[in-house]
C-alpha cells in the first residue's frame, strides 16, 4: 500500500487518481497508524516551505515519518514542495527541512536572467543523469517532459544523487535519489503518460 501523506498542503486527490490509473494500491491518509503500515510513502506539497514544515510538525506525523524513512528505509517520493522538504533548509524559509537528503533548496531569483519569469511554470524537458529505478525506461522516451510550477529548486551536495536534470536559466536537479529517498520537482500526476511511467516505476520499487 502506497500512502499519500495528507498534511493539508498538497494536491493529494490528483496523485491518488493517477496511482489508481496505473493500477497501484494507494490511500490518502493523515493518520500515524496508516504511515506505520505503509509499504511506500508519497509526500506531496504545494505552497510555502515554512508553512508546510509547521503543518508536518503540528500534525504529529513527524516522528512516524522519520522512523519509517530513516530506520525502516521505506521508499518515499517527495513531489514539488514535498521534494524541497526533503532537504536540510530552504532560502524560502527559516525552519529546517526534514534533512532526509544532503541538499539545500535555493531560489531561481538572483540565479537566472531577470527576463526569465519566476515561477518556472509549464512543460519542460528532463535529461536522465544517474540511472535509477524511478526513471527506468526514460532513455527510450523521445524528449521526456513534465509539468513544473516552482520558484525554488534543490542543489544536492553529491551530484550523483541527481537522476534527472532540467534547464531553466540554470541547469538543476529536477529529480533525485539518495537511497530510499526520492524527489521530483515537477508534477508527475499532471504530466500525462510521462508522469504515469514515473509513478508506475515508483509503485514497482
Amino acid at each position, binding site marked *: 500500500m502506497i500512502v499519500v501523506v495528507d498534511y493539508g498542503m498538497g494536491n493529494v486527490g490528483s496523485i491518488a487518481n493517477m496511482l489508481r*490509473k496505473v493500477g497501484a494500491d494507494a490511500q490518502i491518509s493523515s493518520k500515524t497508524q496508516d504511515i506505520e503500515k505503509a509499504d511506500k510513502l508519497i509526500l506531496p506539497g*504545494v505552497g510555502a516551505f515554512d508553512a508546510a514544515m509547521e503543518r508536518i510538525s503540528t500534525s504529529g506525523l513527524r516522528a512516524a515519518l522519520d522512523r519509517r524513512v530513516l530506520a525502516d528505509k521505506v521508499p518515499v517520493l517527495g513531489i514539488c514542495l514535498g521534494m524541497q522538504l526533503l532537504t536540510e533548509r530552504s532560502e524560502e524559509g527559516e525552519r529546517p527541512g526534514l534533512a532526509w537528503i544532503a541538499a539545500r533548496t535555493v531560489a531561481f531569483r538572483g540565479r537566472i536572467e531577470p527576463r526569465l519569469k519566476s515561477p*518556472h511554470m509549464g*512543460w519542460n524537458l528532463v535529461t536522465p543523469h544517474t540511472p535509477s529505478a524511478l526513471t527506468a525506461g526514460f532513455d527510450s522516451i523521445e524528449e521526456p517532459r513534465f509539468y513544473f510550477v516552482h520558484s525554488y529548486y534543490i542543489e544536492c551536495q553529491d551530484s550523483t544523487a541527481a537522476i534527472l536534470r532540467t534547464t*531553466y536559466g540554470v541547469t538543476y536537479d529536477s529529480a533525485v535519489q539518495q537511497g530510499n529517498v526520492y524527489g521530483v520537482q515537477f508534477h508527475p500526476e*499532471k*504530466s*500525462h503518460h510521462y508522469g504515469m511511467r514515473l509513478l508506475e516505476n515508483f509503485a514497482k520499487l
Partner: protein
Amino acid sequence: MLRVRVIPCLLLRQGSLVKTVRFRKPAYIGDPINTVRIFNELEVDELAFLDVAASVEDQDPDLGVLRQIADECFMPLSYGGGIRDVATADRILQIGFEKVIVNSASFENPQLIADLARRFGSQAVVVSIDVKRTLLGGYKVASRSATSVQPQGPVQWAREVERLGAGEILLTSVDREGTWQGFDVPLTARVTDAVNVPVIAHGGAGSIEHMREVVRDGGASAVALGSLVVYQNKGMGVLVNFPDKPTLTRALNAT
C-alpha cells in the same frame, strides 16, 4: 528550454460545453466530459474552463462536473466562473484543479486576489482580464461576461492584480473572441510590458501563425485556444481537435 503553453479554453454553461462569438451567441458544442477525454488522449499542455453563466446568473461553480473533469485529466487544470470567496476556491483546488481564475469578483473585492494568493500561493491564482476596444481606439476592462465596463484601463488593472498577488493573467480580447481573426497583439504587448507574471493571450486564435505572432510580438507566455480546437474550421461543424504538436513546437519555441 521551457515550452510555450498552448491551452484549450473551454466554456461551460449549465453543464454543457458551449462556444461564443464576442462573448455572445453561445453555441452548443457537446458534453464536457467526453470532450476532456479527447483532450486528455491528445495530451494537451493544460486545460482552462470558464463558466460563462456563473457570475452573470449568480450561480456557484458546478463542483460535480469539475470533479468528473479532474478524474479524467492528467494535466494542469484551471477553472473560473462564480468564484467569490476563499472557501469556494479551496473546494475547487481540493478536487484536483491547480488554479482558480477570478474576474468579476475581483472588482467588487480586490482583496480576494490577495487572500487567495496568501492561502494557496500566487501560482494557483489566475486573474482573468476581459478587454474591449473603445470607439476611439483605446481599451477598457469589462466584467460579468463583458456586460459591465470598469473604469480602469487594462495596463493599470494588470499592474494592480499583479501587486495584489496574481500569479498569472488570462488576457482576453472581447472583440476578437470567437472570430478567428488573430489575437490583439498590441493589447497583449502593452500588458506583457507592464507586468512580470506570465500572460496567457486569449481571443481570436485562428491559425498557428496567429499564435506565433502573439508570442513573438506580444510577449505572451502562453496562448489559449477556443474555436480552433472545437470546430473543424471557421463556419464549419464541431470537431474537437488540437494542432499538430511538432508544428506547434517549431512555430512557438523558435521565436
